[in-house]
């Protein structure tokens, strides 16, 4: 095919689309070419001069990031000449790089460190005083900038120019005085700022949110899906498994959904996962009870009720599997489907989109929920600021699958207040707010980090969640609770 070219990298043939660069071809061939300034999501700068490779027939070494792959090209990344070039490129990067590793949050996932272990490992030759530059600068609510650690790869500048188009960063001065920075007193304000810390190959940009919290080598990552909005970015969730403490989320490349990035709102999606912000055990009228007792209470309350006296209030923050489980369980217990309501926050503007990733629909699984309801042939009533339809139904028992990400529901307290006016409300959620205490029964549920299941994003892309060990051993997922419900109802019969 004419729009494909075949070249060989270290004598290994690889076919790539015409117009690809050597570094892209090398990635496809599984050959790692060391690089700093090149980033697949940004334009090519070609300034770090690290990715040099030998191309047969060219007198000088070429940078792999800007050299187009051509038919029959022979690339070598293993010769002594290339290795020596990599070693020297690293040396030039390191001569003015401070020895901050012990206090640098990037240590452990720093590309400079990794490459030093991989291609460097030499005695430093520079004996003179290093160039000093400003350190620990406050450049916004989310980031700390250390200009001394910066290797001037310009990834952040390009990100600001190309992705967010905010252009708050520049490289000032020249020569070895060149320094990255914002305009004095102007801060980085957009909703994608943490990406700067991600793409920074060194510790020049570090996240304030994560500053000094934990060393990265204690963290284990899980591939999962961000529950922050209906875009459903693919993410890695980082947990310190010995402490059962979640520390951060980072985007995981997914060309179909989020590319390389995610928003700052999504980055906060670890906060509600940790024990301190969660309900540890079910609360029946303010008293802690066991999960079994709680489900027994629900079973008893549901006993003998007509299907139209039971209301199921859904938010689109649960997995498809959980919706299916809850609807099937209720159908079998009540012999027919209950009244179903969909709870959306009254401030929500579901069609909003910031042009990059973040959507106004702050629920990760609206599409999946609607699909499940459709399959079950259920038409649901939407509660959005107006709770009258629910009150009018006068349910004896109301089961609420409450939003897991409460920050997406700024008017949550008001809604919960309304729900507390109903007869018996069972609130599947982790709310610790005062208004929730008035509810009849509160049952804590597993968070997105602890369950497996499926989210379907706004565009119909289904992605699987992956379960981590639960923070509270006794807390179950909604599907498990409803499984219990149908089992208990069955055995009562």
């Amino acid at each position, binding site marked *: 095919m004419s729009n494909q070219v075949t070249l060989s990298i270290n004598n290994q043939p690889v076919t790539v689309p015409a117009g690809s660069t050597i570094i892209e071809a090398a990635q496809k061939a599984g050959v790692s070419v060391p690089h700093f300034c090149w980033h697949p999501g940004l334009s090519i700068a070609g300034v770090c001069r690290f990715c040099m490779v030998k191309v047969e027939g060219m007198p000088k070494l070429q940078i792999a990031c800007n050299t187009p792959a051509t038919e029959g090209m022979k690339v070598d990344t293993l010769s002594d000449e290339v290795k020596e070039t990599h070693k020297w490129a690293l040396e030039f990067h390191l001569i003015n790089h401070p020895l901050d590793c012990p206090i640098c949050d990037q240590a452990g996932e720093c590309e400079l460190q990794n490459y030093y272990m991989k291609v460097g490992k030499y005695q430093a030759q520079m004996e003179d005083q290093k160039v000093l530059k400003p350190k620990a600068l406050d450049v916004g609510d989310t980031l700390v900038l250390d200009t001394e650690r910066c290797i001037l790869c310009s990834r952040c500048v390009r990100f600001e120019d190309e992705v967010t188009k905010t252009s708050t960063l520049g490289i*000032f*001065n020249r020569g070895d005085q060149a320094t990255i920075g914002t305009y004095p007193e102007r801060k980085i304000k957009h909703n994608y700022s943490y990406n700067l810390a991600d793409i920074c190959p060194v510790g020049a940009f570090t996240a304030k949110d994560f500053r000094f919290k934990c060393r990265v080598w204690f963290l284990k990552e899980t591939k999962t899906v961000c529950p922050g909005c209906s875009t459903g970015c693919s993410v890695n969730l980082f947990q310190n498994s010995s402490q059962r403490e979640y520390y951060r989320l980072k985007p995981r490349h997914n060309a179909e959904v989020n590319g390389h990035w995610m928003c700052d709102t999504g980055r906060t999606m670890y906060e509600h996962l940790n024990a301190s912000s969660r309900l540890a055990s079910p609360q029946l009228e303010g008293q802690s009870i066991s999960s079994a007792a709680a489900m027994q209470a629900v079973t008893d309350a549901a006993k003998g009720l007509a299907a139209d006296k039971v209301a199921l209030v859904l938010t689109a923050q649960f997995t498809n599997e959980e919706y299916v489980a809850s609807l099937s369980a209720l159908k079998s217990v009540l012999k027919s489907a209950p009244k179903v309501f969909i709870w959306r926050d009254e401030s929500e503007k579901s069609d909003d989109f910031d042009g990059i990733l973040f959507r106004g629909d702050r629920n990760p699984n609206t599409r999946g929920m609607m699909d499940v309801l459709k399959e079950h042939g259920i038409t649901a009533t939407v509660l959005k600021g107006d709770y009258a339809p629910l009150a009018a139904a006068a349910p004896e028992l109301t089961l609420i699958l409450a939003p897991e990400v409460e920050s997406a529901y700024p008017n949550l307290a008001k809604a919960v207040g309304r729900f507390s006016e109903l007869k018996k409300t069972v609130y599947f959620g982790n709310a610790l707010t005062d208004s929730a205490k008035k509810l009849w029964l509160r049952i804590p549920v597993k968070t997105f980090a602890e369950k497996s299941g499926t989210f379907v994003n706004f565009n119909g892309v289904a992605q699987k969640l992956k379960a981590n060990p639960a923070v509270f051993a006794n807390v179950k997922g909604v599907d498990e609770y409803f499984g219990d419900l149908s089992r208990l109802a069955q055995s009562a019969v």
Partner: protein
Amino acid sequence: MASFFSAGLNETIKGYLGRYETKRSSILPILHAIQDENDWISPEAVQALEAEHGLSVIDVNEVLSFYTMYRKAPPKPYRLEVCGSISCWLNGADKTISDAKSYIAQAEKSGQSVPFECHKVECLGVCGYAPVALVNKDRYLNVTPELARKLIDDYSKKELPAAAKKCAADLAARAAQK
């Protein structure tokens, strides 16, 4: 709101903004124009360029910090800039520079105010007639220590250039504001 720039300067800036293919190309000439009138480019001027003429402060600051001809701090009225690059250095530029600097320092020690500062700069491009020096925009060749002293004396006697007066007035106004 009153403009930061004088009416004439504003006209010049507008002229440059429309003169080139892109607005950004006008940054260098505009900065030259501001410096010609104010003697230096203050942070306020950079901010005013953004507020009044829509040039991004980042773009302007990048350019401002990259090129050495732009003065980022208020200078003295006269600058004796002696080339210290290889050709001039071979012909004794170092001597001229150190002599001029100590001449100024000595005069200042004795309580005189000398409207001069002396810098070493890189190549000025007339290397055959080394050492080469600029006093503001006037070029001098074969600048021996004696000639440098004479230049300092002669210029010091002259009336201050308009830009220097403007610079002094601006600084005084700023100090008064504080």
